[in-house]
């Protein structure tokens, strides 16, 4: 396969990222009459079921750094995070007019209530608030979750006018297994050679996966990896950090770039958790809904939106990630006004502090523009880490 140079691949991803009208998804929909697009918000929905319905799962991640929010401010008070207001803005401005339905995962009261706003304002659209269990026992939370997925399947079948068979779901599970494997390869590659896969590039590559059909995204990641491996890029004397907490409202791209420019290679993150939520392959044999349910219960990522029944395991995902990725420190980045992220953070800090893992905390909004203070803070952090490791 002839690959494009890395810059070209990244430029294509950036175009997708910046296009708030979602031209790629519109093209996909227009290519075959009757196709449907289902938007979903962070942090996790079982995209396999949407895909199995022959529909395109489209990640809706707010309006980004540059979109002007005019109407959205009339919907949300100043002390509520930015993602719901920019999302509403996009809907009101017609940017989501081609989206046939929206899914709102159960991560916080803001996203939850946004599902109700959608019901009030866009009465003709399919709206699914998608509840995931906080009880992780197969016969309790597992049964509940499997039934929720069956309801989703029935709802989408009705919307699409065709049955969604178990085989459809099995095929989609395989497609997403493959996609996740390549996502993980990209993450592994970046952790091994962070100078060859800058985080802003990896982020853009993953963002493309929120818009493109999974197969196309997989192909893009393969192409990127081949190109990035081949590219000759200088290694910098950066420290290695895990970026965590940025799980719903996304930080501006400039923030990710600033961290790296100031001397921190991001070697792991939880930015777009949906693509890495399930930690293992989902079996493609047997009951597909049961398999997705079990994968969620037993092998899914830890995040502030999930209850951790075992106090001893609280924060272990981060410690594991620091160890596995050989990180020198942690950068907590939380969206302003985000209860789940901000309330979780002190608990996670109390786990890493005794291990002597250095950390800093920054707060952002998707449209934060002042990067200088962040650059200074992370620059000082990087310097101090280098100093410690040298001494």
């Amino acid at each position: 396969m002839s690959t494009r140079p890395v810059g070209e691949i990244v430029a294509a991803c950036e175009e997708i990222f910046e296009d708030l009208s979602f031209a790629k998804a519109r093209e996909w929909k227009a290519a075959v009459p009757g196709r449907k697009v289902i938007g979903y918000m962070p942090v996790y929905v079982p995209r396999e079921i949407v895909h199995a319905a022959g529909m395109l799962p489209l990640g809706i991640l707010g309006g980004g750094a540059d979109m002007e929010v005019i109407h959205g401010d009339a919907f949300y008070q100043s002390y509520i995070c930015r993602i719901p207001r920019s999302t509403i803005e996009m809907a009101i401005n017609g940017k989501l007019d081609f989206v046939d339905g929206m899914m709102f995962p159960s991560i916080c009261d803001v996203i939850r209530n946004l599902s109700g706003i959608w019901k009030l304002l866009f009465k003709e659209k399919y709206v699914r608030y998608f509840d995931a269990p906080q009880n992780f026992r197969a016969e309790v939370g597992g049964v509940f979750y499997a039934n929720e997925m069956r309801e989703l399947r029935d709802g989408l079948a009705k919307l699409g006018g065709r049955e969604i068979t178990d085989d459809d779901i099995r095929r989609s599970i395989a497609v997403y297994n493959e996609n996740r494997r390549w996502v993980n390869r990209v993450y592994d590659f970046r952790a091994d050679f962070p100078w060859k896969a800058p985080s802003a590039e990896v982020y853009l590559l993953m963002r493309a996966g929120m818009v493109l059909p999974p197969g196309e995204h997989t192909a893009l990641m393969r192409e990127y990896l081949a190109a990035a491996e081949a590219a000759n890029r200088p290694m910098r004397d950066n420290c290695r950090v895990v970026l965590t907490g940025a799980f719903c409202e996304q930080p501006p791209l400039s923030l990710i770039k600033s961290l790296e420019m100031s001397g921190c290679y991001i070697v792991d993150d939880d930015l777009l958790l949906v693509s890495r939520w399930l930690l293992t392959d989902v079996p493609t044999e047997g009951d597909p809904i049961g398999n997705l349910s079990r994968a969620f219960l037993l092998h899914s990522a830890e995040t502030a939106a999930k209850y951790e029944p075992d106090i001893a395991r609280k924060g272990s995902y981060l410690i594991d990630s620091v160890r596995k990725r050989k990180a020198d420190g942690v950068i907590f980045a939380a969206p302003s006004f985000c209860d789940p992220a901000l309330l979780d953070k002190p608990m996670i800090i109390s786990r890493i502090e005794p291990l002597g893992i250095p950390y800093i905390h920054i707060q952002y909004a998707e449209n934060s523009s002042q990067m200088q203070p962040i650059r200074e803070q992370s620059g000082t952090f990087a310097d101090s880490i280098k100093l410690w490791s040298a001494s």
Partner: protein
Amino acid sequence: MSRQEVVKSLSQVKQKEMIGRNYDRITGGTVKVSSTFVPGNLNELLMCFDIANNLPEINAIQNAMRKKSGEMIAEAERSGHSEDVCTYVKADIGMMAKGNIAPNGKPFPDPDVLLLSYTGCFTFMKWFELLREQYKCPTVMLHVPYAADGEPTKNMRDYIVKQLKEDVIPVLEKVSGVKFDIDRLREYLRKSAIAENDLVWMLESSKHKPSPVDCYFGGVYYMGPIFTAFRGTDEAIEYYKLLRAEIEERIAQGLCAQSPDGDIPEENYRLVVEGPPNWTSFRDFWRMFSEAGAVVVASSYTKVGGVYDYDGFRHDPDHPLETLADYCLGVYTNRNLPTRVDMLARNIVEYDADGLLVNSIKSCNSFSAGQLVMMREIEKITGKPGAFIETDLVDPRYFSAANVKNRLESYFQMIDQKRRAGGSAAASGA
């Protein structure tokens, strides 16, 4: 200005006594204690295990009304909590740091169990994860799904019942050493339903003109027993009987609702209020209404623990676990926005109110996210004007008396203008 000395009614005296006794019970060291949340709480179930029910939200309210919460919040922020998050959580964490003293002056014991019933608000989950860090006691989660399509589904109910059977009850048995007896639960639930009937009668008494009660400021006192440690007890039944008799008497005498300073002389405005009150300046806030003759005839906050009037829910002793599930599923903030809109719009029509006032709470995404849309929808449905004020629950930094007063005054003027335009008389003269 000197305020008239307000004589406490029998129901008020009784309630004060009940609360005092409950704090003595919690701090007395003779019973096991569970911390749990107000919305959809499982008081009857806890009673089956002789476990006392300590509610951190109520402690935060008590501290706010005594002007202590500001310092507690500051303490929590000093220990690393963000300025941006729910202040109930910070007031609670700050209270622990300051010795965890109950309103009776005695220290709260460490809870024997944290019953994390997660209904209507996600922050609850983080809150009890944080408390678990401190107390390291058994913690049991009851996850109540969100009734996103307006109605609870069978799947949701089954999930809750299963959690009760397989997680919650076994943990409570272990903590208390008491075997679960479903007939004991039935008996408590039967008592709950009796008190609930009188509670609903109280809520609906404000359909009278003038309204004999204020269903927001007064309402928070009236709902106290049912939403805290007394639902399912004889005391709650007696309290609501007493309250009912008092209100009947007020109706017979044609009295208006009460204010912190006694009876309001005249009812000028009838409002429906969405959102919790501010607690740090509770009385001043109340006076801004009562001095203008504004009475709250219905409020969503009096449904925060559970909704009884909208679709007729009562605890059902014949289906003990299922009824607990329905109760949890039905709390106000566990209902979707279209249902909340319908509930408030119906209140405005049925209670013949002048409009909707939203008190938007900085801390509380569960209530606040979406309130601007709700207000506009309700204005559209009812044709009555809405108004929006912003305060906080227990953080004194976010209560600006001058701003709130200005907003309220403009709102009352707007209602006057609307009346003039519509040619209708003031509420009490209608």
